[in-house]
């Protein structure tokens, strides 16, 4: 009958700017450094060349790429096989919502300067490429819990201390 693999396998997620600057990359499958660079470069070219009214899905190499642009930033997921592209698109949207809630109307600069936070949120939302928690509240709760420790820690430091001289 109908034999197709229906598996949600995410290969990687990229965030990059309209100028083609990579802002975040998460690889869920071991890929060599060289290959990564090549893939990122190629994929950015392909996605940036797409016109605004075009489909959010792309067939690229043996992968399906789902992308969406938010302001100046492209969010881009590569999935395998015959996955449901639409739900992947919503997955991107949920991630953006999480970022938005966390940073308070997020913009590209937030992600540039606090990219490690963006990674933490992503890790809390997706684990190894699979949706871990769909509840917005619990994802942010987990992040905030860890952040609380951070704030206690963020005592003012002298310039000298910061430079390793103290």
């Amino acid at each position, binding site marked *: 009958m109908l034999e197709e693999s*229906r598996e949600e396998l995410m290969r990687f997620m990229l965030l990059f700017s309209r100028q083609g600057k990579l802002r975040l990359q998460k690889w869920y499958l071991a890929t060599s450094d060289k290959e990564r660079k090549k893939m990122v470069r190629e994929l950015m070219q392909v996605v940036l060349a797409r016109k605004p009214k075009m489909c959010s899905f792309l067939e690229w190499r043996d992968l399906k790429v789902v992308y969406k642009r938010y302001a100046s930033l492209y969010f881009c997921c590569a999935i395998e096989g015959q996955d449901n*592209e*639409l739900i992947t698109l919503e997955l991107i949207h949920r991630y953006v919502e999480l970022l938005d809630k966390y940073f308070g109307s997020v913009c590209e600069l937030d992600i540039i300067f606090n*990219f490690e936070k963006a990674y933490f949120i992503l890790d809390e939302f997706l*684990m*190894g490429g699979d949706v871990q928690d*769909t509840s917005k509240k619990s994802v942010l709760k987990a992040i905030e819990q860890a952040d609380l420790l951070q704030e206690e820690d963020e005592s003012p430091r002298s310039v000298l201390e910061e430079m390793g001289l103290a």
Partner: protein
Amino acid sequence: MSDIVEKTLTALPGLFLQNQPGGGPAAAKASFSSRLGSLVRGITALTSKHEEEKLIQQELSSLKATVSAPTTTLKMMKECMVRLIYCEMLGYDASFGYIHAIKLAQQGNLLEKRVGYLAVSLFLHESHELLLLLVNTVVKDLQSTNLVEVCMALTVVSQIFPREMIPAVLPLIEDKLQHSKEIIRRKAVLALYKFHLIAPNQVQHIHIKFRKALCDRDVGVMAASLHIYLRMIKENSSGYKDLTGSFVTILKQVVGGKLPVDFNYHSVPAPWLQIQLLRILGLLGKDDQRTSELMYDVLDESLRRAELNHNVTYAILFECVHTVYSIYPKSELLEKAAKCIGKFVLSPKINLKYLGLKALTYVIQQDPTLALQHQMTIIECLDHPDPIIKRETLELLYRITNAQNVTVIVQKMLEYLHQSKEEYVIVNLVGKIAELAEKYAPDNAWFIQTMNAVFSVGGDVMHPDIPNNFLRLLAEGFDDETEDQQLRLYAVQSYLTLLDMENVFYPQRFLQVMSWVLGEYSYLLDKETPAEVIAKLYKLLMNDSVSSETKTWLIAAVTKLTPQAHSSDTVERLIHEFTISLDTCMRQHAFELKHLHENVELMTSLLPVDRSCEDLAVDASLSFLDGFVAEGLSQGAAPYKPHHQRQEEKLSQEKVLNFEPYGLSFSSSGFTGRQSPAGISLGSDISGNSAETGLKETNSLKLEGIKKLWGKEGYLPKKESKTGDESGALPIPQESIMENVDQTITKKDQSQVLTQSKEEKEKQLLASSLFVGLGSESTVNLLGKADTVSHKFRRKSKIKEAKSGEASSTHNMTCSSFSSLSNVAYEDDYYLNTLHDRGDKELKTFSLNSELLDSESLTELPLVEKFSNCSLSTPSLFADNSMEIFHPPQSIAASVAKESSLASSFLEETTEYIHSNAMEVCNNETISVSSYKIWKDDCLLMVWSVTNKSGLELKSANLEIFPAENFKVTEQPGCCLPIMEAESTKSFQYSVQIEKPFTEGILSGFIRPLKISSEDFGKLWLSFANDVKQNVKMSESQAALPSALKTLQQKLRLHIIEIIGNEGLLACQLLPSIPCLLHCRVYADVLALWFRSSCSTLPDYLLYQCQKVIEGS
């Protein structure tokens, strides 16, 4: 001290920059992370790539100094790590920091640890050697009382842990399944899911705990466990049918909005959870009516509920449609699903349209009329500006191609092909076109021209099978010799025309195809003499853009044509030119040609015309060289040693690890392993294709020893009307096929007196030519039956035939499958078709569903009791067993069965091997079938006994056995009985073998002791690359090594080679000959097992079995 000052100086500009007033909230936040901020700003301020590089290199060297300075605090290290990650993201190498990332994860406080772990997960991948250093940290954090630490450890474990490191953390993570916090339980489940993906055998023992996770009171944990279930059900759906009810209930609750509002996404309840459940249901209900019936209601509700006009509801709908079409069909649901697809296809949103096309592609084979409904939309999508939509449409068309619409569809595909540049697309599309052309080509000219297009576009990226198959097809031909000759002649003519064109470059593969065809079939030409063809080939040979591989093909073609040519100026010129060539391969060919040219008689006998298909008798042993060898030996030459023997010797001298797996037998292969250059060139000369000599094996066209692969019946030379159908499409003139299809359509247009706009009409016409043969009357065509008949060039597809074979057994009743205790997929259905041939020809069919089999492993009694742990069960090997019994006319009531005597009678024959007890498989009043297994040295022998219990003879009893995937059954002689006497028993033996090694479930029947010496063990041990280690706790009863090993010997049939002190060596093999070695060592009550094998999965499997045996007893 000076470097610290320098650091300070390099950091200063950043500090100044930081003090500049920033704009907006982002900049304000950014000022906290000072150094990163200045780095980022520094980079943005730069204009050229070169400057950026300089700045980053500077940054990296300052970072390098900082991270390795002993004075650097962990807090600073954390800050450095962030910058390192940033530099890596920009594409610069920061590998010097990897070790510090691990250190940070190990030593830092919570916050530093978090950054450390993040850096580790971004920097390292599964096979990175530094990961080993992380194990202790992870183990420590998993045991921590701090929740955040445990979470971090679980996250990193699920991201980058390789399978070798799983045993170190597995027990700890297992414990976490009982943790009081749901977040920990959830992450633990997901981590175990990842383990299941990379090493399923290692988590096999915790399946029962997954059930607990499925019933967890927390929705998140339950949802996480669905990942595992989806995976496991995909591997073996029959083992989880009992959970269908639970999944349905969960889905009902989710759809009914019973979950906390938290899980809503745009007021849709837990969409990811819904989709996961729908996928699971789709797998469970596939081909299973009873299970499918359980889910009809909830699917109906899902379809009904998803009405909100939002992407996420469409995502759920799409999944729903998929599930509805996957499970046992219900017309009502199918109707609704079809309506849904319509919604997608007709949507103005491009994303939905795309999914609509995708869904159509998926369901089209089941319901071709759906394509008819949406034909106008499909036509529109064909000309869509977005290439992705076009491509999906072509995919759809590819699925509905038949003999009537093939020309139009292929035309559309070629158009797309000419526009696309991406290699992957080209390879994919070219393959499809070639397949369709071979299957449905309406005539020779079209076929050759289409293939020309395929070769010139697909060129050197396409799959090598395409040119290989094409040449094979030309060479072998079909039933009709004149038709074959016409096809060949047409090919030759078309290639000559192509070669006449100036300044056109063809891909190398195409040139190779051309040269082979011209070399073989130029003799069919009337006008052009072989000399002229040779001249053309010569021109190509002198062309610099032709690769040396292609040149060998060309020269081979010239060689073949030379005996046919009358004048041979060109040939002589060629010989002259190439005997001094720098390319040794070409030089050799030229010399061969030269010598053959001098001896015309030999040449004509060596290179006969049109004999490419005939089998060659190749003297593989090279016996004609024996005299030469003997002479050499007598003169004191060293005897020849085969390659592997030489390597072995070299190895034993050098004591270097050999990573090549050894075969089991060490006997040298003698003559067969012998190869000499002379042998190769001779062999290929005879084959008439000396081009091969110089070719690399991987990407050359292999033509030697061509076998008959093309079914004769595939070719039907009937001239069917190509487009004569009810919708009135006009026949397409052959000449115009390769040109723009629009022209043809316009021509037809004029003949139609209709008032539609021209464009509309074109579309309609295109539609009628595309969807020809898709109407309800011709539905069958699509489903394959008529297809196979109308194939002109048929590719022999084993899978397809197997499928139609299954379908054609019309007597069979619907299967009903049942789950068993073990995980093995049971799909055994026995059909006892009893035909009472008494005038009325009444056909009685009754299916005997052998519930008996369920208890199979339990009924393996006395003799094999010790093997009862092995989960091999006879019937599970066979996917489908059917049996037909024809009663003779005088059939009367059945007599009493005598099974007790039966078993003993056939056990006698085979006492020298260990065997299982006989077990009844099925029976009725006339006949009973039972079976038992014999573990022979070289195979597993299955004996099936059929007993005629009636007092009458049976005629034409027929026992058919089909092995399951991965198994092969060889029939022993005498399996078909013309007559079966009354009250007699007859046994049939089948030997079962594994076709390729795999390790799912039921291998234990194929494990045999491997009797080798300790010395051989040592040699083999070093040569195996795959190893697995594990410590197993022994039960008290077998605390001593010998008794533990004895258990392994008895239960798993491992051979004990030697026991030295507290160490033991064992060996076994998986039939036919995959060795596996085991090294055991005892410390107190712990047995350390260490497996090595040439097969990567076997050690895992055996480890699991040993664990079961040792821990279980």
